[in-house]
Protein backbone atom coordinates (compact mmCIF):
# COMPACT_ATOMS: atom_id res chain seq x y z
CA UNK A 1 0.00 0.00 0.00
CA UNK A 2 2.87 2.36 0.83
CA UNK A 3 4.46 1.74 -2.57
CA UNK A 4 1.12 2.29 -4.27
CA UNK A 5 0.60 5.60 -2.46
CA UNK A 6 4.18 6.66 -3.12
CA UNK A 7 3.82 5.92 -6.82
CA UNK A 8 0.50 7.73 -6.90
CA UNK A 9 2.08 10.71 -5.12
CA UNK A 10 4.96 10.92 -7.60
CA UNK A 11 2.50 10.79 -10.50
CA UNK A 12 0.51 13.63 -8.96
CA UNK A 13 3.63 15.75 -8.57
CA UNK A 14 4.59 15.07 -12.20
CA UNK A 15 1.11 16.08 -13.33
CA UNK A 16 1.29 19.23 -11.19
CA UNK A 17 4.57 20.20 -12.86
CA UNK A 18 2.91 19.55 -16.21
CA UNK A 19 -0.04 21.73 -15.19
CA UNK A 20 2.30 24.57 -14.22
CA UNK A 21 4.04 24.34 -17.62
CA UNK A 22 0.65 24.31 -19.34
CA UNK A 23 -0.58 27.40 -17.50
CA UNK A 24 2.74 29.17 -18.00
CA UNK A 25 2.60 28.54 -21.76
CA UNK A 26 -0.96 29.82 -21.81
CA UNK A 27 -0.01 32.90 -19.80
CA UNK A 28 2.98 33.50 -22.05
CA UNK A 29 0.78 33.25 -25.14
CA UNK A 30 -1.96 35.54 -23.85
CA UNK A 31 -0.15 38.01 -21.59
CA UNK A 32 3.61 37.91 -22.28
CA UNK A 33 4.47 41.08 -20.36
CA UNK A 34 2.61 43.56 -18.16
CA UNK A 35 4.74 46.41 -19.54
CA UNK A 36 1.83 47.99 -21.40
CA UNK A 37 -0.35 47.87 -18.30
CA UNK A 38 2.38 49.36 -16.09
CA UNK A 39 3.69 52.05 -18.42
CA UNK A 40 0.38 53.04 -19.96
CA UNK A 41 -0.84 53.24 -23.52
CA UNK A 42 1.42 56.22 -24.33
CA UNK A 43 4.64 54.28 -23.71
CA UNK A 44 7.10 54.11 -26.60
CA UNK A 45 8.34 50.69 -27.81
CA UNK A 46 11.84 51.54 -26.56
CA UNK A 47 10.51 52.19 -23.07
CA UNK A 48 8.60 48.91 -23.13
CA UNK A 49 11.70 47.05 -24.24
CA UNK A 50 13.71 48.67 -21.46
CA UNK A 51 11.05 47.79 -18.87
CA UNK A 52 10.93 44.20 -20.12
CA UNK A 53 14.71 43.98 -19.85
CA UNK A 54 14.97 45.39 -16.34
CA UNK A 55 12.08 43.23 -15.07
CA UNK A 56 13.22 39.98 -16.65
CA UNK A 57 10.54 39.69 -19.31
CA UNK A 58 13.03 39.22 -22.14
CA UNK A 59 14.89 36.37 -20.45
CA UNK A 60 14.89 32.96 -22.10
CA UNK A 61 11.53 31.24 -21.69
CA UNK A 62 12.96 28.59 -19.38
CA UNK A 63 14.32 31.27 -17.01
CA UNK A 64 10.96 33.02 -17.02
CA UNK A 65 9.27 29.70 -16.23
CA UNK A 66 11.55 29.06 -13.25
CA UNK A 67 10.94 32.61 -12.08
CA UNK A 68 7.19 32.01 -12.40
CA UNK A 69 7.43 28.78 -10.37
CA UNK A 70 9.50 30.59 -7.74
CA UNK A 71 6.88 33.28 -7.28
CA UNK A 72 4.11 30.65 -7.15
CA UNK A 73 5.89 28.70 -4.43
CA UNK A 74 6.16 31.89 -2.42
CA UNK A 75 2.39 32.29 -2.58
CA UNK A 76 2.36 35.04 -5.19
CA UNK A 77 -0.26 34.18 -7.80
CA UNK A 78 0.31 37.30 -9.84
CA UNK A 79 -0.96 40.84 -9.92
CA UNK A 80 -4.12 42.14 -11.53
CA UNK A 81 -3.21 45.39 -13.26
CA UNK A 82 -6.85 46.00 -14.07
CA UNK A 83 -7.97 45.84 -10.44
CA UNK A 84 -4.63 47.14 -9.15
CA UNK A 85 -4.63 44.42 -6.55
CA UNK A 86 -2.79 41.15 -6.02
CA UNK A 87 -4.66 38.10 -7.25
CA UNK A 88 -4.41 36.48 -3.82
CA UNK A 89 -6.18 39.46 -2.23
CA UNK A 90 -8.93 39.27 -4.85
CA UNK A 91 -9.37 35.56 -4.19
CA UNK A 92 -9.39 35.96 -0.42
CA UNK A 93 -12.42 38.23 -0.54
CA UNK A 94 -14.48 35.63 -2.33
CA UNK A 95 -13.13 32.15 -1.74
CA UNK A 96 -15.27 31.46 1.34
CA UNK A 97 -18.51 32.23 -0.49
CA UNK A 98 -17.67 29.97 -3.44
CA UNK A 99 -16.47 27.20 -1.16
CA UNK A 100 -19.75 27.40 0.74
CA UNK A 101 -21.85 27.23 -2.44
CA UNK A 102 -19.88 24.29 -3.91
CA UNK A 103 -19.44 22.50 -0.60
CA UNK A 104 -23.06 22.49 0.48
CA UNK A 105 -24.20 21.58 -3.05
CA UNK A 106 -21.79 18.65 -3.13
CA UNK A 107 -22.88 17.42 0.30
CA UNK A 108 -26.56 17.72 -0.61
CA UNK A 109 -25.96 15.99 -3.93
CA UNK A 110 -24.32 13.02 -2.18
CA UNK A 111 -27.09 12.86 0.42
CA UNK A 112 -29.72 12.79 -2.34
CA UNK A 113 -27.94 10.69 -4.98
CA UNK A 114 -26.83 7.82 -2.68
CA UNK A 115 -30.29 6.66 -1.58
CA UNK A 116 -31.81 7.62 -4.93
CA UNK A 117 -29.38 5.48 -6.92
CA UNK A 118 -29.81 2.52 -4.56
CA UNK A 119 -33.59 2.87 -4.69
CA UNK A 120 -33.50 2.97 -8.49
CA UNK A 121 -31.34 -0.14 -8.73
CA UNK A 122 -33.34 -2.14 -6.19
CA UNK A 123 -36.69 -1.17 -7.73
CA UNK A 124 -35.30 -1.46 -11.24
CA UNK A 125 -37.72 -0.57 -14.08
CA UNK A 126 -40.44 0.46 -11.66
CA UNK A 127 -42.32 3.70 -12.25
CA UNK A 128 -40.18 5.46 -9.66
CA UNK A 129 -36.99 4.30 -11.33
CA UNK A 130 -38.19 5.38 -14.76
CA UNK A 131 -39.21 8.82 -13.53
CA UNK A 132 -35.90 9.34 -11.75
CA UNK A 133 -33.89 8.06 -14.72
CA UNK A 134 -35.75 10.33 -17.14
CA UNK A 135 -35.34 13.33 -14.85
CA UNK A 136 -31.63 12.61 -14.47
CA UNK A 137 -31.28 12.26 -18.23
CA UNK A 138 -32.96 15.59 -18.90
CA UNK A 139 -30.92 17.38 -16.21
CA UNK A 140 -27.76 15.75 -17.51
CA UNK A 141 -28.39 17.19 -20.98
CA UNK A 142 -29.40 20.61 -19.69
CA UNK A 143 -27.01 23.55 -19.54
CA UNK A 144 -26.92 24.70 -15.91
CA UNK A 145 -27.88 28.27 -16.83
CA UNK A 146 -31.12 27.01 -18.38
CA UNK A 147 -31.92 25.04 -15.23
CA UNK A 148 -31.21 28.16 -13.17
CA UNK A 149 -33.51 30.24 -15.36
CA UNK A 150 -36.33 27.71 -15.09
CA UNK A 151 -35.97 27.66 -11.30
CA UNK A 152 -36.03 31.47 -11.23
CA UNK A 153 -39.12 31.52 -13.44
CA UNK A 154 -41.00 29.01 -11.30
CA UNK A 155 -39.86 29.75 -7.76
CA UNK A 156 -39.07 33.46 -7.92
CA UNK A 157 -41.37 34.95 -10.56
CA UNK A 158 -44.43 32.70 -11.00
CA UNK A 159 -44.51 31.73 -7.31
CA UNK A 160 -42.42 34.34 -5.49
CA UNK A 161 -41.10 32.08 -2.73
CA UNK A 162 -37.39 32.75 -3.12
CA UNK A 163 -35.30 35.64 -4.36
CA UNK A 164 -34.00 35.54 -7.94
CA UNK A 165 -30.72 37.01 -6.77
CA UNK A 166 -28.25 35.33 -4.44
CA UNK A 167 -27.25 36.91 -1.16
CA UNK A 168 -25.08 40.00 -1.72
CA UNK A 169 -23.67 40.13 1.79
CA UNK A 170 -19.93 40.22 2.43
CA UNK A 171 -20.25 38.18 5.58
CA UNK A 172 -20.25 34.42 5.15
CA UNK A 173 -22.55 33.99 8.16
CA UNK A 174 -25.19 36.26 6.65
CA UNK A 175 -24.88 34.36 3.37
CA UNK A 176 -25.37 31.03 5.14
CA UNK A 177 -28.39 32.36 7.02
CA UNK A 178 -29.98 33.86 3.91
CA UNK A 179 -31.99 30.85 2.73
CA UNK A 180 -34.25 33.14 0.74
CA UNK A 181 -31.43 34.13 -1.56
CA UNK A 182 -29.33 30.98 -1.47
CA UNK A 183 -31.91 28.24 -2.05
CA UNK A 184 -32.11 28.58 -5.83
CA UNK A 185 -28.35 28.77 -6.55
CA UNK A 186 -27.72 25.80 -4.27
CA UNK A 187 -30.61 23.88 -5.83
CA UNK A 188 -29.29 24.54 -9.34
CA UNK A 189 -25.81 23.28 -8.57
CA UNK A 190 -27.09 20.35 -6.50
CA UNK A 191 -29.49 19.12 -9.20
CA UNK A 192 -26.80 19.21 -11.88
CA UNK A 193 -24.47 17.13 -9.70
CA UNK A 194 -27.24 14.74 -8.58
CA UNK A 195 -28.07 14.01 -12.22
CA UNK A 196 -24.64 12.56 -12.91
CA UNK A 197 -24.07 11.01 -9.46
CA UNK A 198 -27.37 9.08 -9.39
CA UNK A 199 -26.62 7.51 -12.78
CA UNK A 200 -23.30 6.14 -11.51
CA UNK A 201 -24.85 5.15 -8.21
CA UNK A 202 -27.59 3.18 -9.97
CA UNK A 203 -25.20 1.20 -12.14
CA UNK A 204 -22.75 0.60 -9.30
CA UNK A 205 -25.60 -0.74 -7.12
CA UNK A 206 -26.71 -3.03 -9.93
CA UNK A 207 -23.18 -4.42 -10.17
CA UNK A 208 -23.13 -5.11 -6.43
CA UNK A 209 -26.60 -6.70 -6.52
CA UNK A 210 -25.24 -9.28 -8.96
CA UNK A 211 -22.42 -10.29 -6.57
CA UNK A 212 -22.30 -13.68 -4.87
CA UNK A 213 -22.19 -12.28 -1.34
CA UNK A 214 -25.58 -10.63 -1.86
CA UNK A 215 -26.97 -13.97 -3.02
CA UNK A 216 -25.43 -15.67 0.01
CA UNK A 217 -26.92 -13.07 2.35
CA UNK A 218 -30.34 -13.61 0.82
CA UNK A 219 -29.96 -17.40 0.75
CA UNK A 220 -29.18 -17.59 4.43
CA UNK A 221 -32.49 -15.87 5.08
CA UNK A 222 -31.35 -12.40 6.03
CA UNK A 223 -34.24 -9.93 5.80
CA UNK A 224 -33.99 -7.77 2.66
CA UNK A 225 -33.66 -4.65 4.82
CA UNK A 226 -30.50 -6.02 6.44
CA UNK A 227 -29.12 -7.28 3.13
CA UNK A 228 -29.34 -3.75 1.86
CA UNK A 229 -28.06 -1.94 4.93
CA UNK A 230 -25.27 -4.37 5.86
CA UNK A 231 -24.02 -5.71 2.56
CA UNK A 232 -25.15 -3.46 -0.23
CA UNK A 233 -24.87 0.18 0.83
CA UNK A 234 -21.22 0.25 1.80
CA UNK A 235 -20.03 -1.64 -1.24
CA UNK A 236 -22.20 0.29 -3.65
CA UNK A 237 -21.03 3.61 -2.23
CA UNK A 238 -17.35 2.96 -2.95
CA UNK A 239 -17.34 4.42 -6.49
CA UNK A 240 -18.85 7.56 -4.95
CA UNK A 241 -15.49 8.32 -3.34
CA UNK A 242 -13.78 8.47 -6.72
CA UNK A 243 -16.73 10.29 -8.21
CA UNK A 244 -16.53 13.09 -5.66
CA UNK A 245 -12.86 13.52 -6.48
CA UNK A 246 -13.63 13.59 -10.19
CA UNK A 247 -16.56 16.00 -9.84
CA UNK A 248 -14.35 19.00 -9.03
CA UNK A 249 -14.00 20.30 -12.61
CA UNK A 250 -17.78 20.10 -13.08
CA UNK A 251 -18.29 21.88 -9.75
CA UNK A 252 -15.92 24.70 -10.74
CA UNK A 253 -17.67 25.14 -14.08
CA UNK A 254 -21.06 24.93 -12.34
CA UNK A 255 -19.92 27.59 -9.90
CA UNK A 256 -18.96 29.87 -12.76
CA UNK A 257 -22.37 29.60 -14.42
CA UNK A 258 -24.49 29.58 -11.26
CA UNK A 259 -22.75 32.62 -9.79
CA UNK A 260 -23.20 34.46 -13.06
CA UNK A 261 -26.92 33.61 -13.30
CA UNK A 262 -27.66 34.49 -9.67
CA UNK A 263 -25.11 37.32 -9.38
CA UNK A 264 -23.36 35.71 -6.42
CA UNK A 265 -20.07 37.42 -5.57
CA UNK A 266 -17.83 34.38 -5.62
CA UNK A 267 -14.76 33.23 -7.51
CA UNK A 268 -16.83 32.19 -10.54
CA UNK A 269 -18.22 35.71 -10.93
CA UNK A 270 -14.71 37.10 -10.48
CA UNK A 271 -13.60 34.88 -13.37
CA UNK A 272 -16.51 36.10 -15.48
CA UNK A 273 -15.76 39.76 -14.69
CA UNK A 274 -12.10 39.20 -15.49
CA UNK A 275 -13.05 37.68 -18.85
CA UNK A 276 -14.95 40.85 -19.69
CA UNK A 277 -12.04 43.03 -18.56
CA UNK A 278 -9.54 40.72 -20.31
CA UNK A 279 -7.57 40.43 -17.06
CA UNK A 280 -5.29 37.49 -17.90
CA UNK A 281 -3.36 37.25 -14.59
CA UNK A 282 -6.60 36.61 -12.69
CA UNK A 283 -7.94 34.21 -15.34
CA UNK A 284 -4.77 32.14 -15.43
CA UNK A 285 -4.37 32.12 -11.64
CA UNK A 286 -7.91 30.83 -11.20
CA UNK A 287 -7.42 28.19 -13.88
CA UNK A 288 -4.20 27.11 -12.18
CA UNK A 289 -5.92 26.96 -8.80
CA UNK A 290 -8.70 24.88 -10.35
CA UNK A 291 -6.24 22.46 -11.95
CA UNK A 292 -4.28 22.04 -8.71
CA UNK A 293 -7.54 21.40 -6.89
CA UNK A 294 -8.44 18.71 -9.42
CA UNK A 295 -5.08 16.92 -9.08
CA UNK A 296 -5.18 17.10 -5.30
CA UNK A 297 -8.82 16.02 -5.27
CA UNK A 298 -8.09 12.93 -7.33
CA UNK A 299 -5.12 12.05 -5.15
CA UNK A 300 -7.14 12.42 -1.95
CA UNK A 301 -9.96 10.37 -3.47
CA UNK A 302 -7.51 7.57 -4.27
CA UNK A 303 -6.18 7.57 -0.71
CA UNK A 304 -9.71 7.61 0.68
CA UNK A 305 -10.63 4.67 -1.53
CA UNK A 306 -7.69 2.58 -0.31
CA UNK A 307 -8.81 3.30 3.24
CA UNK A 308 -12.44 2.48 2.51
CA UNK A 309 -11.85 -0.60 0.36
CA UNK A 310 -9.60 -3.29 1.90
CA UNK A 311 -9.39 -5.09 -1.45
CA UNK A 312 -7.32 -2.23 -2.83
CA UNK A 313 -5.15 -2.11 0.27
CA UNK A 314 -4.10 -5.71 -0.29
CA UNK A 315 -3.40 -5.32 -3.97
Amino acid at each position, binding site marked *: MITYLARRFVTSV*VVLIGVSI*FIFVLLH*ATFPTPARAVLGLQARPSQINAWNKSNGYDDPVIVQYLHYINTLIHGNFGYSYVENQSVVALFQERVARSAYLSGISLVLAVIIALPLGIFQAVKRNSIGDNVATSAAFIL*YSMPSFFLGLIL*IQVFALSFPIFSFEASQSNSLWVVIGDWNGMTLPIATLTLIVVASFSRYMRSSTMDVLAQDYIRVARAKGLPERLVLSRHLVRNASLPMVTLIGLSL*PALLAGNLITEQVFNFQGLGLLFFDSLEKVDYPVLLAYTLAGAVLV*VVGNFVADIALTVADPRIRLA
Partner: protein
Amino acid sequence: MATPPLPPVDAQRAVLLGPEGGDVGAVQSGWRLALREFMSNRLAVVGFGMIVFFVLFCFVGPLIYRTNQIDTNLIIANEAPSGAHLLGTDTNGFDELGRIMVGGQAALEIGFFAAVVAIVIGALWGAVSGLAGGIVDSVMMRVVDVFLSVPFLFVVLILAVKFGASVLSLSLVIGFFAWQVPARLVRGEVLTLRERDFVLAARTAGSTSWRLISRHLLPNALGVVIVNVTFQVADAILAVSYIGFLGFGLHFPNVDWGDQLSAGTEYLQDGYWWLIYPVGACIVLTVMALNFIGDALRDSMDVRLRRR
Protein backbone atom coordinates in the same frame (compact mmCIF):
# COMPACT_ATOMS: atom_id res chain seq x y z
CA MET B 1 6.58 -14.60 -22.80
CA ALA B 2 6.94 -18.16 -24.10
CA THR B 3 6.79 -18.42 -27.88
CA PRO B 4 4.09 -20.85 -28.96
CA PRO B 5 5.19 -23.64 -31.32
CA LEU B 6 4.97 -22.60 -34.95
CA PRO B 7 1.76 -23.67 -36.69
CA PRO B 8 1.99 -25.79 -39.85
CA VAL B 9 3.13 -23.98 -42.98
CA ASP B 10 -0.35 -23.90 -44.49
CA ALA B 11 -1.75 -22.21 -41.44
CA GLN B 12 1.11 -19.72 -41.47
CA ARG B 13 0.32 -18.86 -45.05
CA ALA B 14 -3.34 -18.51 -44.19
CA VAL B 15 -2.39 -16.08 -41.45
CA LEU B 16 -0.18 -14.12 -43.81
CA LEU B 17 -2.56 -14.04 -46.72
CA GLY B 18 -5.91 -13.85 -45.13
CA PRO B 19 -5.64 -11.92 -41.89
CA GLU B 20 -7.25 -8.75 -43.13
CA GLY B 21 -9.91 -10.47 -45.20
CA GLY B 22 -10.85 -12.87 -42.44
CA ASP B 23 -10.92 -10.23 -39.79
CA VAL B 24 -12.88 -7.71 -41.79
CA GLY B 25 -15.52 -10.36 -42.46
CA ALA B 26 -15.84 -11.04 -38.76
CA VAL B 27 -15.98 -7.34 -37.99
CA GLN B 28 -18.69 -6.74 -40.55
CA SER B 29 -20.99 -9.35 -39.10
CA GLY B 30 -20.23 -7.70 -35.76
CA TRP B 31 -21.28 -4.36 -37.23
CA ARG B 32 -24.50 -5.89 -38.51
CA LEU B 33 -25.23 -7.34 -35.08
CA ALA B 34 -24.51 -3.98 -33.52
CA LEU B 35 -26.82 -2.27 -35.99
CA ARG B 36 -29.64 -4.69 -35.21
CA GLU B 37 -29.03 -4.16 -31.50
CA PHE B 38 -29.07 -0.40 -32.02
CA MET B 39 -32.32 -0.49 -33.99
CA SER B 40 -34.02 -2.59 -31.32
CA ASN B 41 -33.35 0.18 -28.79
CA ARG B 42 -36.36 2.46 -28.93
CA LEU B 43 -34.65 5.45 -27.31
CA ALA B 44 -31.80 5.23 -29.80
CA VAL B 45 -34.17 5.34 -32.75
CA VAL B 46 -36.01 8.27 -31.19
CA GLY B 47 -32.71 10.04 -30.59
CA PHE B 48 -31.58 9.39 -34.12
CA GLY B 49 -34.88 10.71 -35.47
CA MET B 50 -34.51 13.84 -33.33
CA ILE B 51 -31.02 14.53 -34.67
CA VAL B 52 -32.21 14.07 -38.26
CA PHE B 53 -35.06 16.45 -37.48
CA PHE B 54 -32.76 19.11 -36.02
CA VAL B 55 -30.32 18.89 -38.92
CA LEU B 56 -33.18 19.29 -41.42
CA PHE B 57 -34.76 22.01 -39.25
CA CYS B 58 -31.58 24.08 -39.10
CA PHE B 59 -30.19 23.59 -42.59
CA VAL B 60 -33.26 22.94 -44.78
CA GLY B 61 -35.77 24.83 -42.61
CA PRO B 62 -34.64 28.34 -43.68
CA LEU B 63 -35.32 27.37 -47.33
CA ILE B 64 -38.94 26.58 -46.52
CA TYR B 65 -39.70 29.00 -43.67
CA ARG B 66 -38.21 32.12 -45.26
CA THR B 67 -37.46 34.95 -42.86
CA ASN B 68 -35.46 38.14 -42.99
CA GLN B 69 -32.35 37.50 -40.91
CA ILE B 70 -30.35 40.39 -42.38
CA ASP B 71 -32.15 43.67 -41.62
CA THR B 72 -33.05 44.60 -38.08
CA ASN B 73 -36.53 46.05 -37.66
CA LEU B 74 -37.05 47.63 -34.26
CA ILE B 75 -40.70 48.48 -34.99
CA ILE B 76 -41.65 44.81 -34.67
CA ALA B 77 -39.19 44.02 -31.82
CA ASN B 78 -40.26 41.56 -29.12
CA GLU B 79 -43.60 40.73 -30.71
CA ALA B 80 -45.52 37.77 -29.35
CA PRO B 81 -46.00 34.70 -31.57
CA SER B 82 -48.52 35.27 -34.35
CA GLY B 83 -49.38 33.97 -37.81
CA ALA B 84 -46.68 36.12 -39.41
CA HIS B 85 -43.99 35.14 -36.89
CA LEU B 86 -44.67 31.67 -35.54
CA LEU B 87 -42.42 32.15 -32.51
CA GLY B 88 -42.59 35.93 -32.32
CA THR B 89 -39.67 38.27 -32.86
CA ASP B 90 -36.53 39.04 -30.84
CA THR B 91 -35.04 42.32 -29.61
CA ASN B 92 -33.80 43.25 -33.06
CA GLY B 93 -37.04 42.36 -34.82
CA PHE B 94 -35.66 39.14 -36.27
CA ASP B 95 -38.11 36.26 -36.59
CA GLU B 96 -37.33 34.07 -33.57
CA LEU B 97 -38.03 30.72 -35.25
CA GLY B 98 -35.76 31.65 -38.16
CA ARG B 99 -33.19 32.89 -35.67
CA ILE B 100 -33.22 29.54 -33.88
CA MET B 101 -32.52 27.83 -37.20
CA VAL B 102 -29.53 30.10 -37.81
CA GLY B 103 -28.26 29.61 -34.27
CA GLY B 104 -28.73 25.87 -34.61
CA GLN B 105 -26.55 25.80 -37.71
CA ALA B 106 -23.68 27.27 -35.71
CA ALA B 107 -24.26 24.92 -32.77
CA LEU B 108 -24.40 21.79 -34.94
CA GLU B 109 -21.43 22.84 -37.08
CA ILE B 110 -19.24 23.63 -34.09
CA GLY B 111 -20.36 20.47 -32.32
CA PHE B 112 -19.50 18.34 -35.32
CA PHE B 113 -16.17 19.97 -36.19
CA ALA B 114 -15.01 20.09 -32.58
CA ALA B 115 -15.80 16.38 -32.23
CA VAL B 116 -13.85 15.59 -35.39
CA VAL B 117 -10.84 17.57 -34.16
CA ALA B 118 -10.99 15.90 -30.74
CA ILE B 119 -11.40 12.41 -32.17
CA VAL B 120 -8.59 12.76 -34.70
CA ILE B 121 -6.12 14.07 -32.14
CA GLY B 122 -7.27 11.63 -29.47
CA ALA B 123 -7.30 8.53 -31.67
CA LEU B 124 -3.82 9.19 -33.06
CA TRP B 125 -2.42 10.11 -29.65
CA GLY B 126 -3.90 7.02 -28.02
CA ALA B 127 -2.82 4.68 -30.83
CA VAL B 128 0.77 5.95 -30.88
CA SER B 129 0.95 5.84 -27.09
CA GLY B 130 -0.46 2.32 -26.84
CA LEU B 131 1.67 0.95 -29.64
CA ALA B 132 4.91 2.55 -28.43
CA GLY B 133 4.53 1.42 -24.82
CA GLY B 134 7.23 1.93 -22.19
CA ILE B 135 8.52 5.38 -21.35
CA VAL B 136 6.91 7.04 -24.41
CA ASP B 137 3.56 5.67 -23.33
CA SER B 138 3.96 6.94 -19.75
CA VAL B 139 5.00 10.42 -20.89
CA MET B 140 2.14 10.66 -23.38
CA MET B 141 -0.38 9.51 -20.79
CA ARG B 142 0.91 12.04 -18.23
CA VAL B 143 0.29 14.73 -20.86
CA VAL B 144 -3.28 13.43 -21.08
CA ASP B 145 -3.52 13.67 -17.28
CA VAL B 146 -2.34 17.28 -17.40
CA PHE B 147 -4.94 18.19 -20.03
CA LEU B 148 -7.61 16.38 -18.01
CA SER B 149 -6.72 18.29 -14.84
CA VAL B 150 -7.02 21.77 -16.30
CA PRO B 151 -10.70 22.81 -16.12
CA PHE B 152 -11.97 22.62 -19.70
CA LEU B 153 -14.47 25.47 -19.70
CA PHE B 154 -12.02 27.98 -18.22
CA VAL B 155 -9.32 27.40 -20.80
CA VAL B 156 -11.80 27.43 -23.66
CA LEU B 157 -13.26 30.74 -22.41
CA ILE B 158 -9.82 32.31 -22.05
CA LEU B 159 -8.88 31.28 -25.59
CA ALA B 160 -12.25 32.41 -26.94
CA VAL B 161 -11.56 35.86 -25.45
CA LYS B 162 -7.99 35.88 -26.75
CA PHE B 163 -8.55 34.66 -30.29
CA GLY B 164 -12.08 35.86 -30.89
CA ALA B 165 -14.99 33.59 -31.64
CA SER B 166 -15.93 32.20 -35.02
CA VAL B 167 -17.27 28.78 -35.98
CA LEU B 168 -13.76 27.70 -36.95
CA SER B 169 -11.92 29.09 -33.91
CA LEU B 170 -14.48 27.73 -31.44
CA SER B 171 -14.37 24.30 -33.09
CA LEU B 172 -10.59 24.20 -32.89
CA VAL B 173 -10.41 25.48 -29.34
CA ILE B 174 -13.07 23.08 -28.04
CA GLY B 175 -11.68 20.15 -30.00
CA PHE B 176 -8.14 20.83 -28.90
CA PHE B 177 -9.11 20.52 -25.25
CA ALA B 178 -11.50 17.57 -25.54
CA TRP B 179 -9.29 14.81 -26.99
CA GLN B 180 -8.15 13.27 -23.69
CA VAL B 181 -10.97 10.77 -23.22
CA PRO B 182 -10.81 9.32 -26.76
CA ALA B 183 -7.02 9.12 -26.36
CA ARG B 184 -7.42 7.00 -23.23
CA LEU B 185 -10.11 4.81 -24.80
CA VAL B 186 -8.15 4.17 -27.98
CA ARG B 187 -4.97 3.46 -26.03
CA GLY B 188 -6.85 0.88 -23.98
CA GLU B 189 -8.11 -0.80 -27.15
CA VAL B 190 -4.67 -0.72 -28.76
CA LEU B 191 -3.06 -2.31 -25.72
CA THR B 192 -5.18 -5.44 -26.23
CA LEU B 193 -5.17 -5.30 -30.04
CA ARG B 194 -1.40 -5.14 -30.37
CA GLU B 195 -1.06 -8.61 -28.82
CA ARG B 196 -3.40 -10.15 -31.39
CA ASP B 197 -2.21 -12.42 -34.16
CA PHE B 198 -3.24 -10.20 -37.05
CA VAL B 199 -1.02 -7.40 -35.74
CA LEU B 200 1.85 -9.86 -35.38
CA ALA B 201 1.18 -10.98 -38.93
CA ALA B 202 1.14 -7.44 -40.24
CA ARG B 203 4.42 -6.76 -38.41
CA THR B 204 5.95 -9.91 -39.84
CA ALA B 205 4.89 -8.79 -43.30
CA GLY B 206 6.91 -5.64 -42.72
CA SER B 207 4.21 -3.05 -41.99
CA THR B 208 5.53 0.27 -40.81
CA SER B 209 4.20 1.63 -37.51
CA TRP B 210 2.09 4.17 -39.37
CA ARG B 211 0.54 1.45 -41.56
CA LEU B 212 -0.03 -0.66 -38.47
CA ILE B 213 -1.90 2.19 -36.81
CA SER B 214 -3.89 3.41 -39.79
CA ARG B 215 -4.78 0.07 -41.40
CA HIS B 216 -4.97 -2.34 -38.49
CA LEU B 217 -5.25 -0.74 -35.05
CA LEU B 218 -7.54 2.25 -35.65
CA PRO B 219 -10.09 0.37 -37.81
CA ASN B 220 -10.40 -2.24 -35.09
CA ALA B 221 -10.73 0.41 -32.38
CA LEU B 222 -13.45 2.12 -34.39
CA GLY B 223 -16.20 0.91 -32.05
CA VAL B 224 -15.09 2.94 -29.04
CA VAL B 225 -14.30 5.90 -31.28
CA ILE B 226 -17.80 5.97 -32.79
CA VAL B 227 -19.41 5.77 -29.36
CA ASN B 228 -17.25 8.61 -28.15
CA VAL B 229 -17.97 10.84 -31.18
CA THR B 230 -21.63 11.20 -30.24
CA PHE B 231 -20.75 12.21 -26.68
CA GLN B 232 -18.13 14.61 -28.03
CA VAL B 233 -20.69 16.34 -30.24
CA ALA B 234 -23.10 16.60 -27.30
CA ASP B 235 -20.42 18.03 -25.00
CA ALA B 236 -19.24 20.48 -27.65
CA ILE B 237 -22.78 21.77 -28.22
CA LEU B 238 -23.13 22.27 -24.46
CA ALA B 239 -19.75 24.02 -24.29
CA VAL B 240 -20.71 26.38 -27.12
CA SER B 241 -23.96 27.20 -25.37
CA TYR B 242 -22.03 28.04 -22.18
CA ILE B 243 -19.62 30.26 -24.09
CA GLY B 244 -22.47 31.95 -25.92
CA PHE B 245 -24.51 32.41 -22.76
CA LEU B 246 -21.61 34.13 -21.01
CA GLY B 247 -21.33 36.46 -24.00
CA PHE B 248 -18.06 35.27 -25.52
CA GLY B 249 -19.54 33.33 -28.43
CA LEU B 250 -20.14 34.30 -32.03
CA HIS B 251 -20.43 38.00 -32.78
CA PHE B 252 -23.49 39.74 -34.13
CA PRO B 253 -25.01 39.24 -36.71
CA ASN B 254 -23.93 35.62 -36.24
CA VAL B 255 -25.64 33.90 -33.37
CA ASP B 256 -25.61 30.64 -31.44
CA TRP B 257 -28.20 29.14 -29.15
CA GLY B 258 -26.52 30.13 -25.87
CA ASP B 259 -26.15 33.69 -27.08
CA GLN B 260 -29.84 33.81 -28.01
CA LEU B 261 -30.94 32.45 -24.65
CA SER B 262 -28.75 34.96 -22.87
CA ALA B 263 -30.37 37.82 -24.80
CA GLY B 264 -33.80 36.45 -23.92
CA THR B 265 -33.09 36.36 -20.17
CA GLU B 266 -33.16 40.16 -20.06
CA TYR B 267 -36.89 39.85 -20.64
CA LEU B 268 -37.51 37.05 -18.14
CA GLN B 269 -39.54 39.38 -15.92
CA ASP B 270 -41.52 40.73 -18.87
CA GLY B 271 -42.78 37.24 -19.64
CA TYR B 272 -41.37 37.06 -23.19
CA TRP B 273 -41.26 33.27 -22.99
CA TRP B 274 -40.70 32.77 -26.72
CA LEU B 275 -37.23 34.29 -26.42
CA ILE B 276 -36.13 31.76 -23.80
CA TYR B 277 -37.88 28.40 -23.74
CA PRO B 278 -37.94 27.35 -27.43
CA VAL B 279 -34.20 27.86 -27.82
CA GLY B 280 -33.52 26.28 -24.42
CA ALA B 281 -35.59 23.28 -25.43
CA CYS B 282 -33.60 23.01 -28.66
CA ILE B 283 -30.31 22.80 -26.71
CA VAL B 284 -31.67 20.22 -24.27
CA LEU B 285 -33.33 18.05 -26.93
CA THR B 286 -30.29 18.03 -29.22
CA VAL B 287 -27.90 17.13 -26.44
CA MET B 288 -30.33 14.55 -25.06
CA ALA B 289 -30.78 12.92 -28.47
CA LEU B 290 -27.02 12.63 -28.87
CA ASN B 291 -26.71 11.12 -25.39
CA PHE B 292 -29.45 8.60 -26.24
CA ILE B 293 -27.59 7.59 -29.38
CA GLY B 294 -24.27 7.39 -27.54
CA ASP B 295 -25.67 5.22 -24.76
CA ALA B 296 -27.35 2.89 -27.24
CA LEU B 297 -24.22 2.65 -29.38
CA ARG B 298 -22.16 1.80 -26.32
CA ASP B 299 -24.62 -0.92 -25.34
CA SER B 300 -24.74 -2.35 -28.86
CA MET B 301 -20.93 -2.38 -29.17
CA ASP B 302 -20.50 -3.99 -25.77
CA VAL B 303 -20.44 -7.70 -26.50
CA ARG B 304 -21.16 -8.58 -22.90
CA LEU B 305 -24.51 -6.80 -22.98
CA ARG B 306 -25.48 -8.18 -26.37
CA ARG B 307 -28.31 -10.69 -26.45
CA ARG B 308 -27.39 -13.85 -28.33
